[in-house]
């Protein structure tokens, strides 16, 4: 006899004993006379959360005694206060130590749907549930034959109750559907041997029809399982022990409800309007508590600004009159010829010219937007990190214009390879602090900026330069950068009469220029999106900044967000390498991590060699010298063209985002291509101006 058979036999015996006291006819009358049931289906599925069915559970056959629960009504009220969507009351008395008395007490205590959970195999038990005020009953497919299942389902539906139909296998799911089940529970615990198999849900849930409410049953203990089940597509979860045995029941339920809300919020569409804090499982706020109040303030002020037409007006006026927007969309026919030679794809290639912005890169879009927020917040001091120097220069520039005190943190190695940008920032009145701790590159500059912020958060704003870091930075920086794609889309139509591009290419360090140009096209599936990371000496060399290729980045939390991260076996951040300081970062913005996981953006990489060849190609075919960072996108154009060709395109329209100009990189390029005499190169060596080799 299996455990289930035994439980059913016991429940039946107990029911028969009750029937000797109260006849079937009386219990039917009581059921019909009871106050109308709540339509529980409306409580078990919602767009903004994963309802939690919290269970009153004293014991179970698998785990024995769990909790005394002397006052089930009080417990139910705590569940309700914690935000439970329904209460499940175990009425089986032998092994679960429940009773109909518990059901009565709970029914009287709460205003949310109540489920009678028992081993129900007779009409009597269904009437009894209704007579005691249940809105839901549980039917276990494994305990019933098809005819009985259909009969009991119909009876419960006639009485206005919702039926949670518990299944364990594909076969049982099919039987449940055939019998007319509208709410299906998948029990991840195999009742035959009592082993819990949480992963089973993933396989089984795929089988459920769309209009059926899916409840993950059993195996749910805490936030982890709620999140996993939610991501696998569960509409609701049933939790027993995890809430019944918690020392603070209300808080335990509240945590689960929050976890569910977070899953739902992380999956909202359209893709382009996603606001964080979570993109899928990525993002969040992995920062010291000391920064939370400031991040909350920033989020609030930004939300207000977003809704304020005056803010937009000021921002757009400055974009036009100070930055020089819109930046042109330039056709590159001679470069396209080169791409055709190499790939066979007959492409029209357009360059989005962020290099023509004031300060020479896209970074000013975000620096300007955040600086205006600083004014709104009434803060007086701005700090920022910089790698290649472009964001540092942009920040120093807007701070000079708006009269804000400005300090830029820069890793010592970066400060040497971008010495001219250090001078530019100082020229603009900023204080530049060279960071000599850690690896002395971009990530160490961010660490030092975070330490400064933790200390001076009252009057200081951290003007983060990319779509990484804690919420609200990834969404906010994206919003300030998405003008790139919006302009490109319009210009392609207005200037060239082309409805939409077939492909977009951008380089991805933290990912702000890529998000900026891609956002306007995220929900247009005709547009293939390509992101190129810094390949350094190639993925096998260990000297690169590729986070997305197999065997490179792993899931981790870094500088405020969960994303992909280059790290050691111990979880220590790995050194990264790229010829471009601006792409030389161990992690990547959480929205990119999500776009990778859902397959919307095709991520690959360009090595130093490929990027430098592209740097030369574009310079010599179009007279446009791209930043080495942007050259990774140019190199990517060849790869994207080959991919499009492989996908069956013969002709294609491509946009390559030229995120910045290459003037700052001439020392590196001059040496790379041997355009300098030995003496000239030696003179540069003295300052280490192109110094990847600088220790």
């Amino acid at each position, binding site marked *: 006899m299996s455990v289930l058979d035994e439980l059913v036999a016991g429940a039946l015996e107990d029911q028969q004993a009750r029937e000797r006291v109260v006849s079937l006819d009386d219990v039917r009358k009581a059921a019909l006379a009871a106050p109308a049931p709540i339509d529980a289906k409306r409580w078990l599925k919602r767009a903004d959360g994963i309802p939690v069915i919290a269970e009153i559970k004293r014991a179970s056959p*698998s*785990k024995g005694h*769990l909790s005394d629960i002397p006052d089930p009504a009080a417990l139910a009220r705590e569940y309700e206060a914690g935000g439970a969507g329904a209460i499940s009351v175990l009425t089986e008395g032998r092994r679960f130590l429940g009773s109909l008395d518990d059901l009565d007490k709970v029914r009287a205590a709460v205003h949310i749907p109540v489920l009678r959970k028992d081993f129900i195999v007779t009409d009597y038990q269904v009437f009894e549930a209704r007579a005691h005020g249940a809105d839901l009953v549980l039917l276990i497919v494994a305990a019933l034959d098809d005819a009985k299942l259909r009969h009991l389902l119909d009876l419960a539906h006639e009485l206005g109750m919702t039926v949670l139909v518990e299944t364990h296998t594909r076969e049982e799911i099919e039987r449940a559907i055939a019998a007319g089940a509208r709410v299906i529970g998948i029990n991840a615990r195999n009742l035959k041997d*009592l*082993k*819990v198999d*949480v*992963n089973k849900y993933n396989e089984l849930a795929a089988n459920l029809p769309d209009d059926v409410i899916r409840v993950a049953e059993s*195996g749910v*203990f*805490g*936030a*982890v*399982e709620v*999140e*996993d089940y939610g991501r696998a597509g569960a509409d609701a979860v049933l939790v027993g*022990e*995890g809430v019944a*045995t*918690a*020392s*603070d029941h209300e*808080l335990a339920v509240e*945590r689960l409800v*929050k*976890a569910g809300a977070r899953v739902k919020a992380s999956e909202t569409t359209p893709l382009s309007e996603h606001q964080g804090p979570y993109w899928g499982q990525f993002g*969040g*706020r*992995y*920062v*010291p*508590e*000391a920064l*939370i*109040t*400031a991040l*909350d303030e920033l989020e609030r002020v930004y939300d207000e600004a977003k809704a304020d037409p005056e803010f937009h007006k000021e921002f757009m006026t400055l974009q036009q009159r100070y930055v020089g927007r819109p930046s042109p969309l330039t056709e590159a026919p001679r470069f396209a010829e080169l791409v055709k030679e190499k790939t066979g794809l007959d492409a029209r290639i357009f360059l989005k010219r962020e290099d023509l912005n004031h300060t020479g890169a896209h970074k000013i879009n975000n620096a300007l937007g955040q600086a205006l927020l600083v004014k709104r917040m009434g803060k007086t001091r701005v700090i920022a990190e910089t790698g290649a120097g472009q964001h540092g220069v942009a920040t120093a520039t807007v701070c000079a214009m708006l009269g804000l005190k400005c300090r830029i943190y820069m890793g010592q190695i970066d400060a040497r390879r971008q010495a001219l940008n250090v001078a530019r920032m100082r020229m603009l009145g900023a204080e530049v602090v060279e960071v000599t*701790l*850690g690896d002395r590159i971009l*990530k*160490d500059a961010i*660490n030092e900026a975070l*330490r400064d912020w*933790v*200390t*001076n*958060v*009252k009057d200081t704003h951290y003007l983060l330069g990319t779509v990484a870091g804690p919420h609200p930075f990834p969404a906010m920086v994206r919003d300030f950068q998405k003008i790139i794609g919006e302009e490109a889309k319009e210009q392609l139509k207005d200037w060239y009469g082309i409805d939409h591009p077939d492909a977009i290419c951008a380089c991805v360090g933290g990912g702000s220029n890529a998000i900026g140009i891609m956002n306007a096209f995220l929900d247009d599936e005709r547009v293939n999106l390509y992101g190129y990371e810094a390949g350094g000496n190639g993925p096998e060399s260990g000297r690169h900044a590729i986070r997305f290729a197999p065997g490179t980045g*792993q*899931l*981790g*939390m*870094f*500088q405020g967000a969960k994303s992909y*991260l280059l*790290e050691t076996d*111990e*979880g*220590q*951040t790995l050194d990264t390498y790229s010829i471009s300081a601006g792409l030389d970062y161990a992690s990547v913005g959480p929205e990119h991590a999500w776009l990778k996981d859902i397959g919307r953006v095709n991520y690959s990489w360009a090595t130093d060699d490929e990027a430098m060849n592209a740097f030369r190609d574009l310079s010599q075919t179009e007279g446009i010298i791209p930043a080495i960072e942007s050259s990774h996108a140019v190199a990517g154009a060849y790869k994207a063209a080959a991919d499009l060709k492989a996908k069956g395109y013969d002709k294609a329209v491509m946009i390559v985002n030229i995120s910045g100009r290459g003037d700052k990189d001439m020392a590196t390029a001059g040496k790379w291509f041997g355009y300098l005499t030995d003496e000239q190169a030696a003179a540069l060596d003295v300052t280490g101006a192109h110094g990847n080799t600088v220790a």
Partner: protein
Amino acid sequence: MTNTATTPSGQPLGISHKPSRTEAMFDAFKAENKPAFIGYLPYGFPNPDVSLDALRTMVEHGVDAVEIGLPYSDPVMDGPVIQAASQIALNNGESIHGVFKAVETVAKAGGVPLIMSYWNLIYHYGVERFARDFENAGGAGLITPDLIPDEAGEWIEASDRHGLDRIFLVSPDSADERLEVVSRNARGFVYAAARMGVTGERSTIDASPEALVERTRKAGARNVCVGIGVSTPEQGAKVGAYADGVIVGSALVHTLLNNDDRTAKDPAEGLKDLAAKAESLADGIHNAR
């Protein structure tokens, strides 16, 4: 979704309900009207072996609970002294796998073992696996400087299953509602930062920590300890007058560093200095009231 949290018969672990060792310690100190002394040292500093001696030394010389730091490449809440010590430890082969030996060492010496770690190290090791190994080694609780309760779902679940304390931080700028979120989710104690900023010694301590301790208690915390910037017996006495525990980090770490603040001292000399520093701090803290 792998579940290592199972009983021998294959059943998942439930909520542990094991009493909190840290709370028991505070209860004992409260009965004597004294604050507890919590000392910090990174595991593996200056090297794994000497760090075990150093941890033992701390307990033998008056430290009640030891905050064993896990060295991290990117410690955003730490000032130069602890950054230097962590770097030395990493250079000398520190590994998270060894930290459980440090936990055992502290427990065996009679101290309450706590770990202080940036979240990515625990996440990467595996949250459930860490909780299991930490519990098995006799650990009491984990201090998470860059994990707020709102992001701590997995850790709350694992710590519940393994009966471990969850120590979150609050700072003088924290709004009242944040103090409530932290206090509700904390177990063991709440770590109140004496000032805005990163770890490191300071010559003066202002009045803000006392107000913060008061506000945190009002928000529901049973035990509130003060750290960050406490470095002398006098400061320890001042803070110990109102806090349930006094946390000292950089000042202890400092005793094992040479004057350049970048290299480790000769171990024998370092341990002697560490013992003396711990004793004088313990004297100040334990006699604070």
